[in-house]
């Protein structure tokens, strides 16, 4: 479903300085894969994720999502793709402050006129269940949750629009090892039981090893792309 062909991204810093964050990246990802993109800080992982998630367009090369060339689309067309196909889990949780868990999870759905209000709540509860958050917390405000719970809400929100692709940028970056494992277990479950395509971005090998395949990038280039033969599984 993802076909990245020689993608480049050049950031224009000021008038003269230009920074090449991606220098020609190519790979494909099939439906239902669980892939980790790994690399040191500043290697271009987030930049790549923004392009994969149709938040940004490449400055060179081609990006085909489900056969459609995303690099040439307008802002509004990109928004439509994000709405229908993509679920983001951001590194910093990015929940709406002082808003209930349920409303946070329903947020992506209010921009979709096709979904009636009752349906939204049903779907939000479904994805909260899939993300493994206790029902007792659904009515909590976002600032009344623990870090792990917040991350689960963020995952539930990424699931609610029934996306074919889930992108997670350092989802465990702010969590302790234990909670991090639980969250990673959630991703594995979503991948196995619900058949979602998952792209997990991290700079830690431990975390990357939960995926089936690891793409290693450095200085804007793919260094290594291999199957992960010793996939770790979470205890949960």
């Amino acid at each position, binding site marked *: 479903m993802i076909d990245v062909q020689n993608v480049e991204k050049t950031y224009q810093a000021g008038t003269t300085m230009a920074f090449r964050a991606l220098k020609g990246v190519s790979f494909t990802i099939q439906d239902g894969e669980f892939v980790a993109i790994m690399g040191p800080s500043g290697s271009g992982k987030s930049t790549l994720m*923004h392009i994969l*998630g149709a*938040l*940004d367009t490449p400055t060179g090369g081609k990006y085909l999502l489900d056969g459609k060339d995303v690099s040439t689309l307008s*802002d*509004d067309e990109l*928004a*439509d793709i*994000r*709405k*229908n196909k993509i679920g*983001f889990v*951001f590194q910093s949780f*990015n929940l*709406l*402050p*002082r*808003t209930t868990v349920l*409303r946070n999870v329903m*947020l*992506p759905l*209010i*921009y*979709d*006129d096709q979904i009636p*209000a009752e349906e939204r709540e049903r779907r939000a509860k479904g994805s909260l269940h899939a993300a493994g958050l206790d029902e007792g917390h659904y009515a909590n405000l976002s600032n009344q949750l623990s870090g792990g719970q917040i991350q689960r809400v963020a995952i539930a*929100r990424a699931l609610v*629009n029934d996306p074919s692709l889930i992108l997670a940028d350092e989802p465990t970056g702010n969590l302790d090892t234990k909670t991090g494992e639980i969250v990673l277990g959630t991703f594995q479950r979503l991948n196995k039981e619900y058949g979602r395509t998952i792209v997990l971005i991290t700079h830690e090998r431990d975390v990357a090893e939960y995926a089936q395949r690891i793409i290693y990038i450095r200085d804007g280039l793919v260094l290594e792309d291999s199957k992960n033969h010793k996939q770790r599984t979470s205890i949960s």
Partner: protein
Amino acid sequence: MTTLDMLQETYAALSANKVRTGLTMLGIVIGISSVIAMISIGQGAQNSIQQSIQSIGSNLILIQPGAQRGPGFQVSSGRGSARSLTQADADAIAQSVPGVAAVAPEVDGRYQVNARGTNTNTSVIGVDPNYPTVRNVEIDTGNFITTQNLTGLSKVAVLGPTTRDDLFGAGADPIGQTIRINNIDFTVIGVTVAKGGTGFGSQDDRIYIPLTTAQRYLAGNQYLSTISVQAQDTSVMTAVQQQITTLLLQRHAIADPTLADFSIMNQSDIVATASNVTGTLTILLGAVAGISLIVGGIGIMNMMLTTVTERTREIGLRKAVGAKRKDINTQFLMEAVMLTFTGGALGIALGWSISFLIQYFGVLQTQVSLPSILLAFGVSAAIGIVFGYYPARRAAGLNPIEALRYE
């Protein structure tokens, strides 16, 4: 995004920081309420002035001695100093000008008046029996001045209700009592009905005495200070005014109308002049209030800009989950409009209360008009759109990646 969603989002956003929302709204509340109150005061003043002009009579033409000054209020010190109008002029008008219903000559002056130890300084007007008809005066108790009083130079007086209150106490019956005007004794024979209206020379604070008595004992001459002419109806007023002018010029042997020794004006001139003045007053009050409304609008803009900056990450998030430029734009615009609309509604309520209180405490008869309410509503919505437009556009134009990265 459905309308209900939009309203919920807007409510959530506005109630997130209640103090700031409240203070920002206060700017609009003050602006709108002062617009409503000021316009109601202006219109109230306009109505009360027009009413008091109507209450001096109908289809009235007033002739006064002195040079023509064009339509407008005569400065009272100018009166009496010019001596040009006489009883003969009044009689001539009554006899030879067609379309005249009645003529009431008068002479007035201010004198010291006392009765049983109380005293007051008030306007004493010498009139003839036509006066009540022409000038819309009604008698409450007793009688008005009669032809016999006039021919007999009777020392009788009819009091305005305010004068009666001043001299004898509120509601007292002064008929048959004696008052001293300028040290001459007069017997009270009647009291007129209150006409209301304050300022502009209240018509209730007056004493009427026979014209001849006034000329002989008070003024000491035969001249008149005003001739009030009532035309048969409105349509003939201009013609009557014209003919009176011609007649008087001829009687006073003046060839050049610009040198006339009298001035003549009709009620509609006075109404027009007064409306002009109060209209300007209303515009002035409205403009001052309008400025405060604009200041309120700038407050809204300021708050919305702050909000957009504060909620940059939220905007980035919304865009990341599929909100389009238009969705963000509408949401922020909606917040601004909601703010001004609620502020506008509160402002209308407050402005209405203010003008009600002004009326309640008898300062002025105010009038809140529907157009001013509609105007206020329209203006507040427009202010929301105008001052919310730029912040909303800024929000909608944010790049989602940069917005998410924003600290």
